Structures are given as structure tokens and as C-alpha cells.
């Protein structure tokens, strides 16, 4: 161990130097060991999420000050069972620890986080980590749960055998993280400089030996009372039941979507009222001018019509993060494995696909847990077919304008059912596309499906709230940057050039946007789009929800609608066939530049984003054509 080094003097000098700049610690551990909860408890709100350069592995960094006043930066490394680095995630963990990462300095101290109720795999990893040359401490996390289950751990014995400090902790309690900070302080005070790593990839035989060493430690230092089965087994008996489990999963998904619609109504009404009020007061205070038009018609109306969907996004992410923290997402992957496996995907594809319901970008990024490159690519290619929340604005707008607020079978809301059908179509087509790709384009071995099913945990409100907050900030940042600039662009396009003197039609007919829309319209006429829709689709390429803002701008400037009555305007001007066609278009259309950008970065070539754009555009046009023509025949024109 490093601490046994005889070069005390050199160590003291190094420690003095190190005291000047913040100490760097890294959290390492198996997946599901409560590492992120520990990270949140240590750093509180002082954290930022970014990416490692070159790869889209989420890099979580935070900072805190120890009781002794030492500033410490913390990196939360992706969870892993070994340092072999099979997936991009695990490679990051290995490279940071071995000092091979370009952007992150090698940490001064490794904080190994272990689940106290399941020590053996982490002990094995600790044995592997002892060859990397960085001082370590072992945090026995979830100590409270272990105590509750009657598990006793001889901390002194374990610490003596491993040669490192072991600290019981519980991320849930303030006390636990306080103690850990104190211990980190003590460690940093007499820290040696990190030695050269002499790690090399372990052979199967070495893994076995390390396992047996870990097992022997568990046998000697951990005693467990046989107090019957814990809650996880009882819950699993229901949630993993072959029939009940699937029904519950479907019910959970259905409930989430109903909640997204019914709970969000009040805050959404409040936001649109605020936007209308802002618009009205801006108009009454400011003189009639070009600038006022830009502010009200362009910025406030446009950005407001996107921000109004924040409540739905927050609710969706609330459920996803809540279920993840509870431990249900792994069960969902288990239940869905055979189904997604039938399409040539992987049980692990389920979580990226589910994240894509919120946004394809985190979905595509979450595919990095899939080690097999072909299965990862297949998952990436179909992720944007999952109905992301950016489609919700478009869907809600059209559904609210065209689908009556009726009850079906006295129980389900018809609008909710249509929404459910749109989601279902997205899912089915994703599976169909994945199946076709895997069958005809990328044939190959499928990757092993091996996944830990973590014990159920009561989700921590604080941790869920922080996750939701981060997603909301990402969405608002998008609204403040890309969407805002698109709104200004579309306002410009729809305002200039001015209509000629004595023009009869609405002014926008003579603008650039009008010209573009009219130019594209012949291509889109067979699928029932009028020129206003065609115009809105152009800025809608930046992000799907921008189309709603663009429509609002187009109709507001065209003088067809006032205030927030976009729904009424399109309800009066579009046929039902056009509405259905546009809904269908949005299931498939590749209307998101950011997604294509992320795919480019993830696959490291322009080939796949181009393939994605092409196949999605073709699907969108063909499907919309089929729906529009069928609807016309059925008399909905």
C-alpha cells in the first residue's frame, strides 16, 4: 500500500504543495452501490454535469470543503465491476484512474463506494484497484440498510486486511456524509503522492483468485443473520411475475402518460397566461414598432409556446428518475429483454429507449452501456423513433384542436388515448426498423445480456429533485439558446420583405418564409400540408417543438390568430386529414439537428446521421401520405 512508503520527507513536501490547490478525489464503485447518492450528499448543489471530450460519457464533478477547510473536487466515475473497460463508460473510469485521461487529472484519492449489503464484488474490485497506485478508502455505503437486515461487518478486521481505512456511511443521513468528509480530511492530511500504476488486465484465473480472496474476507468479517427474505424478494415476486409483471409494466407506462397530461394542465395554463400577460403589457407599454413586433410576435410568443411544455417534461423525468432510483428500471429491462431481443436489440437497449421518451439525446448517450457496437448502433438508430417530449407540444396542439375531450368507455380520456396510440406507433416502428436493420444490414452475434437487479430502495426526494432540476435546466437552456435564435430567425423570415403597397393577402405571404413555404408546398401537398405548415417545418428542423412556436409566429403575423389561440386558428383552417397527417409526420420525421449532432459524435462519422435522416424522412413522407389519402377517402378532408 502507498501509505507504507518510507519516503516521509518527500511525502510531506508533496502534501504541503498539494494543500495549496484543491485535492482531487474520485468515487469508484459497482453500478447500483449508491455512489451517486453519496456524490450528491458530499457535494450538495455544487456540481456540474458535462461530457468527457471525444466521448459522450457524462462527467459529473462537484466540490466541497472539508471540516478542516480544505477544498476538494469530486469526480463521480461511471460504475463498473472491473477495470477492463468494455464499454465507453468503463473506459473512462479506467483511464481516469490510471491517469490516461486527457482532460481529467489523476485523482489524489480513490473513494471506493461499496453496498454494505453486497460486499463481495466491490471487495474484488478493491483488490484490483490496489494495483493502480492511488491511496484509497472504502466507504461501506447503505450501512443503515445492512444494520436493518442484521448484517454485521467487522470494520476493524476488514480495514486491517485491506490495509485501507473503511468507513460505514449512509448517503441518506447527514451524519454519514459528515463523517466521510472528516475521514477524507484525515486522509488528505498525510497523503502520499500517487505511485505509478502497475495495473494490467486480469486473466480469468486472476479474477477467480481475487474472487476467492474476496469471498474469504466476506466469510471472516461479515456475518449475516438469517432473518428470512428481505423486501426485494417479496416485491420481485409480483413485479417479475411472468404475467402480472408485464401487466404492471404496461400499467405503469400508461399511468405515466396519463399523469403527464392531467397533472401538467394547471401549470401549463399558468405559463400561457403569464406569456399572454407579458405580451399584452409589452404591447401597451412599448410604441408600435419593428422592435416591439420582434419582442412580442417573435420572442415572447415563440419561446413562450415552447416553455409551456416544461411541466410535462418535468413530470416525465420525475417518473423516469423515480423508477430508476427505486430499482424498477432494471426489472423493466428484464421483462422487456425477450421483446426487444426479438427485434435484435438488447435488454439494456430498453433504458436508452425509455430515456428517449423524454429526449433522444440522453437516450442516444445512454446507449454507451451496450458493449456490442452493432447492438449499440441499432439502438441509436431507432432511439429517435421513440416519442420524445419535444413532440409533445406538436401533439398536444393538434390533439387539443381536433380531438374532442370525450370519455371512452367512461374511463379513459379520448385525447389521452390518441396520445397513447402515437406513442405505441413510435415504439412499434422502432422495433420494426431495428428488426429490419439487424436482419438485413447488420447481421451478427448478439451481445450477452447480463445485468444486476439491484435491491429496491426508497427513492430519495432530494436526489430525484436534483435529477429533474438538471433535466429542466438543460431544456430551458435549449429554449434560451437554439430555440430563441430560431424564433428570431423565423420572425425575420416572416417579416421581410414587407408586403407591397395595396397588397390584399396577409403580409407573410410576401415574406421569405412565405416564399420558402410556397416553394416546398408542392412536395408536401400530397400529404396535406398547407404552406403555413411547410414554413413551420423549416425552423422545426432545429428542434421539433420549434415548429409550434413557428406556427404561432406565422399565424400571429399573418393576422389569423391573436394571443395564445393558435389551436383555434389551426382548428378553423386545417382539415382533420391534414391534422392526422401532421401527427403521423411527427412520429417519424428527423426534425432535430441536435439529435443528428449527437449521433455523429457517438458514431464518430457522418454516415450514420445521414442514414438516419434519410430513412426517417422517407418513413415520415410515406406514412403521412398513407394516412392523409386514407383520411381523404374516409371523408375527413
Amino acid at each position, binding site marked *: 500500500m502507498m501509505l507504507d512508503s518510507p519516503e516521509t520527507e518527500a511525502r510531506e513536501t508533496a502534501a504541503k504543495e498539494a494543500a495549496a490547490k484543491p485535492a482531487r478525489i474520485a468515487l469508484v464503485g459497482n453500478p447500483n452501490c449508491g455512489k451517486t447518492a453519496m456524490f450528491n450528499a458530499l457535494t450538495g448543489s455544487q456540481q456540474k454535469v458535462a461530457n468527457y471530450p471525444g466521448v459522450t460519457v457524462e462527467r459529473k464533478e462537484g466540490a466541497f470543503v472539508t471540516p478542516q477547510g480544505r477544498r476538494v473536487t469530486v469526480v463521480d466515475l461511471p460504475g463498473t465491476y472491473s477495470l477492463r473497460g468494455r464499454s465507453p463508460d468503463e473506459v473512462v473510469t479506467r483511464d481516469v484512474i490510471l491517469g490516461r485521461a486527457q482532460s481529467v487529472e489523476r485523482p489524489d484519492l480513490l473513494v471506493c463506494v461499496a453496498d454494505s449489503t453486497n460486499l463481495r*464484488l466491490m471487495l474484488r474490485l478493491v483488490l484490483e484497484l490496489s494495483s493502480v497506485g492511488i491511496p484509497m478508502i472504502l466507504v461501506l455505503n447503505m450501512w443503515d440498510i445492512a444494520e436493518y437486515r442484521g448484517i454485521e461487518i467487522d470494520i476493524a478486521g476488514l480495514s486491517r486486511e485491506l490495509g485501507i481505512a473503511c468507513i460505514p456511511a449512509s448517503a441518506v443521513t447527514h451524519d454519514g456524509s459528515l463523517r466521510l468528509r472528516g475521514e477524507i480530511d484525515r486522509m488528505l492530511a498525510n497523503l502520499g503522492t500517487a505511485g505509478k500504476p502497475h495495473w494490467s488486465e486480469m486473466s480469468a484465473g486472476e479474477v477467480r483468485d481475487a474472487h476467492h480472496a474476496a469471498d474469504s474476507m466476506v466469510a471472516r468479517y461479515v456475518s449475516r443473520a438469517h432473518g428470512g427474505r428481505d423486501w426485494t424478494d417479496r416485491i420481485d415476486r409480483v413485479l417479475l411475475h411472468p404475467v402480472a409483471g408485464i401487466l404492471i409494466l404496461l400499467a405503469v407506462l400508461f399511468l405515466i402518460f396519463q399523469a403527464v397530461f392531467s397533472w401538467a394542465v394547471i401549470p401549463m395554463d399558468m405559463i400561457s397566461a403569464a406569456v399572454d400577460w407579458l405580451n399584452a403589457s409589452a404591447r401597451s407599454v412599448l410604441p408600435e414598432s419593428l422592435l416591439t413586433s420582434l419582442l412580442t410576435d417573435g420572442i415572447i410568443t415563440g419561446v413562450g409556446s415552447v416553455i409551456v411544455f416544461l411541466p410535462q417534461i418535468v413530470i416525465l423525468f420525475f417518473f423516469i428518475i423515480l423508477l430508476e432510483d427505486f430499482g424498477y428500471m432494471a426489472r423493466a429491462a428484464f421483462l422487456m*429483454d425477450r421483446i426487444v431481443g426479438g427485434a435484435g436489440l438488447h435488454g439494456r437497449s430498453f433504458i436508452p429507449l425509455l430515456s428517449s421518451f423524454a429526449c433522444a439525446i440522453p437516450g442516444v448517450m445512454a446507449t454507451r452501456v451496450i458493449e456490442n457496437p452493432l447492438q449499440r448502433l441499432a439502438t441509436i438508430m431507432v432511439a429517435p423513433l421513440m416519442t420524445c417530449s419535444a413532440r409533445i407540444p406538436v401533439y398536444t396542439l393538434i390533439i387539443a384542436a381536433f380531438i374532442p375531450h370525450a370519455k371512452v368507455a367512461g374511463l379513459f380520456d379520448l385525447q389521452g388515448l390518441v396520445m397513447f396510440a402515437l406513442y405505441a406507433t413510435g415504439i412499434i416502428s422502432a422495433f420494426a426498423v431495428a428488426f429490419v436493420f439487424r436482419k438485413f444490414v447488420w447481421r451478427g452475434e448478439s451481445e450477452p445480456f*447480463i445485468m444486476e437487479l439491484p435491491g429496491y430502495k426508497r427513492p430519495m426526494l432530494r436526489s430525484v429533485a436534483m435529477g429533474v432540476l438538471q433535466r429542466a435546466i438543460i431544456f430551458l437552456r435549449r429554449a434560451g439558446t437554439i430555440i430563441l435564435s430560431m424564433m428570431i430567425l423565423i420572425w425575420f423570415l416572416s417579416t421581410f420583405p414587407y408586403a407591397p403597397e395595396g397588397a390584399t393577402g396577409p403580409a407573410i405571404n410576401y415574406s421569405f418564409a412565405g416564399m420558402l413555404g410556397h416553394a416546398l408546398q408542392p412536395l408536401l401537398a400530397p400529404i396535406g400540408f398547407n404552406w403555413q405548415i411547410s414554413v413551420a417545418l423549416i425552423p422545426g428542423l432545429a428542434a421539433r417543438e420549434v415548429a409550434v412556436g413557428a406556427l404561432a409566429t406565422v399565424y400571429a403575423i399573418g393576422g389569423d390568430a391573436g394571443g395564445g389561440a393558435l389551436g383555434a386558428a389551426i382548428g378553423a383552417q386545417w382539415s382533420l386529414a391534414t391534422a392526422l397527417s401532421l401527427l403521423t409526420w411527427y412520429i417519424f420525421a428527423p426534425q432535430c439537428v441536435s439529435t443528428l449532432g449527437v449521433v455523429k459524435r457517438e458514431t464518430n462519422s457522418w454516415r450514420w446521421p445521414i442514414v438516419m435522416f434519410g430513412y426517417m424522412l422517407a418513413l415520415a413522407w410515406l406514412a403521412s401520405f398513407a394516412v392523409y389519402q386514407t383520411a381523404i377517402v374516409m371523408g375527413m378532408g
Partner: protein
Amino acid sequence: MPGSARSILSGTGLPELDSAVHSQTPIKLSDGRRGFCGVVVSVGRVANAQGNAPGSSAPGEGSAVHAGLAQDSASARDSELERRLLEIGFVEGAKVEILHEGFIGRDPIAVRVDSMRVALRKREAAAIMVQEIPSGNR
């Protein structure tokens, strides 16, 4: 490493299992049914990981046979699977219990491995040989 599984078994602190273990023929974990309780005797040494009809390939006298097979057919893929199974806790001597089966083709399966639960497909489970612990010895 001929005979390694046996020698490891006797060193796992589970001496009470030894007599029970030797009375049964090892089977693939993928052939076990819900409620099966056993102990891992070898990992990643089955040449034919595809076939999993019960009893179709009962492996003779234990680990020495598997070791021999492994030397002939060891590929990078098999060794990758072996290490992944080891890393998640399927190591010789580990106690396993099949907790749940998927609703289509009883696949995948959820297995308790010592103190944790792992989900895996039968294809992967076929690479793990287990020996049943008779219910009296559990």
C-alpha cells in the same frame, strides 16, 4: 487447469455441501427451473453454449472434461463471456438460486448469486455448470 473446480470447491468454506454436491450430476444453469438451488462448479467451459435441451449433453465426470474441451474450443468470445460472468459473481463455489423466469420461453432468468441478484439470458446461463443442492441440505 484440470480438477480446479473441485479443488476450489473444497476451499470455499462450504464443507457441508461437498457430500451433497458429489451425489448429483452437474447441469447447465440454463436447464434449471424456477426454484432451483445449487452451487457453481464451473464457468465458461462449455463448448456448446447454444444447445440447452435438458440432459442432452450431460458432462461426464465433471471439471476435468470441461477443462479439456475449453483448451480446444477456447475463443476470444468464450473467454470474454467467462470473464464477464466471473466479474458479476458467477465463480466456482458460489451459491445460486433461480428466482424468476421470463414470460416468453422462460427467458431470461433472474438468479440469486450469493447476496445479489443477476438477470441473464439462457444462452449465457448455458456457460455455467451448477450442481443441485438437495432441499434437505439448503
